[in-house]
């Protein structure tokens, strides 16, 4: 089957599915007097889309990001419209804020992310080649689990015997893992704080819109208002002294973990007779130093030559005017020979 044909098949499937899905939805909406049925989540339409697209083998980074955003947005819309349809919100911004909070907690999501939309955004940023704090922490988790299952006290037991150096290194590496996880926990706590604050700010922003001409009339406008609130809450936390300290701790702890892992990989590489990064760095460093020295030396030589050329030009100019200069008289081979002959006498 050609690629084009399979795409057409896929489109036909998708359109049929969407028609069926949205007809059912519109019926349900009418029957429930305008209130969407929470038992049939809107974002399920996107799940079906994603499944179809996945089957067609055409999923990629762009669509993944698009779908992640769209699903979250649709779940949010549904929650807000349900609140509007059932009049659960009324004039109370707190009720709308609660509906918003529920909208973020999509079925099937990681329990750790519930009530914490900012943590979800940060986790979603990670992708191939771009691991965030959360992903890196997860990749180190097996080491941490092992370290913790054996108790942390062994990390401080003195090492001895033939393999003492190796043991000491492993202990330091495990301690760095533990330190990193602690730093990540403190970072996550601050992100949760920002998420919680975002709902309060959202309520305030919403309350401020309770006047003619400023009322929210579409789910998109409501969503945009929440984004403003979330960014404001995040910025307040991210610009705090506490966040600066915790952020620095996370970065520094992660670098210590990486450095330990690199050292271990180098040791294995050395045992196998492979070139290491340290060796390459030494070569690169020497090369740069030599190049700088060469360039500086060559610059000085050029400057000397420029001075010499300027002096010679001046002499030539003087000679052209027919007057010998003291320098040319002394330097001329004929004069030198005369002087030498005089000296011998």
């Amino acid at each position, binding site marked *: 089957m050609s690629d084009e044909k399979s795409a057409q098949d896929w489109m036909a499937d998708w359109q049929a599915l969407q028609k069926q899905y949205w007809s059912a939805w519109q019926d349900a909406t009418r029957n429930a007097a305008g209130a969407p049925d929470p038992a049939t989540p809107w974002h399920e339409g996107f799940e079906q889309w994603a499944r179809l697209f996945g089957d067609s083998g055409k999923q990629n980074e762009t669509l993944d990001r698009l779908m992640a955003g769209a699903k979250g947005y649709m779940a949010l819309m549904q929650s807000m419209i349900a609140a509007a349809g059932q009049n659960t919100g009324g004039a109370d911004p707190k009720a709308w804020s609660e509906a918003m909070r529920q909208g973020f907690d999509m079925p099937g999501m990681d329990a750790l992310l519930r009530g914490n939309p900012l943590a979800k*955004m940060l986790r979603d940023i990670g992708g191939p080649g771009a691991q965030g704090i959360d992903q890196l922490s997860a990749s180190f988790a097996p080491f941490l689990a092992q370290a913790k299952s054996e108790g942390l006290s062994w990390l401080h037991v003195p090492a001895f015997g033939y393999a003492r150096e190796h043991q000491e290194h492993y202990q330091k590496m495990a301690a760095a893992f533990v330190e990193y996880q602690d730093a990540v926990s403190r970072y996550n706590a601050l992100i949760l704080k920002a998420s919680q604050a975002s709902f309060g700010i959202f309520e305030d922003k919403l309350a401020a819109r309770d006047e003619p001409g400023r009322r929210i009339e579409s789910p998109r406008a409501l*969503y945009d208002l929440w984004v403003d609130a979330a960014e404001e809450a995040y910025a307040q936390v991210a610009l705090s002294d506490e966040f600066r300290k915790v952020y620095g701790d996370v970065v520094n702890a992660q670098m210590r973990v990486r450095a330990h892992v690199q050292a271990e990989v180098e040791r294995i590489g050395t045992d196998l007779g492979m070139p290491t990064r340290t060796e390459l760095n030494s070569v690169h460093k020497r090369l740069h130093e030599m190049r700088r020295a060469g360039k500086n030396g060559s610059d000085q030589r050029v400057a000397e030559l420029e001075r010499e050329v300027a002096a010679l030009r001046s002499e030539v100019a003087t000679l052209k005017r027919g007057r010998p200069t003291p320098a040319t008289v002394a330097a001329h081979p004929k004069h030198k020979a005369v002087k030498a002959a005089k000296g011998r006498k």
Partner: protein
Amino acid sequence: MGPLRIDPQKAMDEALRFNQRIAASFKTLRSLDEVDYGATAKEEIYREDKLVLYRFRGANKPTAKLPLLIVYALVNRPYMVDLQNDRSLVKNLLAMGEDVYLIDWGYPDQSDRYLTLDDYINGYIDRCVDAVAKHCKVGKINLLGICQGGAFSLCYASTHREKVKNLITMVTPVDFHTPDNMLSHWTRGMDVDLFVDTLGNVPADLMNWCYLTLKPVRLNQQKYIGLVDILDNKAELENFLRMEKWIFDSPDQAGEAFRQFIKDFYQANKLVNGGLKIGDKDVSLKNVTMPVLNIFAEQDHLVPPSASRPLKQLAGTKDYTELAFKGGHIGIYVSGRAQREVPGAIHDWLAART
């Protein structure tokens, strides 16, 4: 009454349209051509290591007396200044008669790890300035530094006054310690020695992750919700993807240069506090005595205006001009307003001084 007046049926229609646009995207995304960039013809006039110095070619011969060299940041690719036909600072400057040159830094690899700020500023930039001056047979040139490239240009202009006739800085950080500078705030708790010693060069993906976390909801979700609005519009989608490519097509950062930039600029704020040394040259903004045009963006979240404005007090020049652009760090190059306002302001300012 309450703050919301959402009609469920209208909201339902909005959701349906949202869904239909996503459906349409399957066809549109498949029909897109390869996203290209760079609108203006250019010729290479100098090359060294991974660096290439280009001269752009306009439809007509330049009328400006002195050439203009653009020094871009190391952290992104310089084609932002010539992104596409209707979004090109370069193209507009050429049309006004400027003779425009650009340094393309290339993509550093591990063999470039030990490149220092001295190598970049007193080495590469200086040799490019010489190459441009030689090419145009002039003694001095005009310099336009962008973002980090603006900070480099300030250092260069301070220590090579005899080669710079006029200096333009765009979205350039000068005071790195203003309270609204989130990026700077975060770097101050970092052990940058440990960071560079561990990573060597700083990976582009890590840099991009850091930038995205400055505004996680806006940059990671709201932007893609907005994308749905244009999924059925091929031309707008191509613009979006071109910009997306630029955002994430980032070079790794040479380790030693990164170390010094973070320590001296972000952490010690030496452009303001003094004590900055690049190689064997002392840098003082008091020595920036040539005319200066400082352009910044009022909604810039990467280089807040408060970080750029102090140049007025710190520079030694008596001829200082400021242009506050209504837009953001990227909009200053690609928005419609930017095309109308920025190239003309640069050209007029230069014309009055050369």
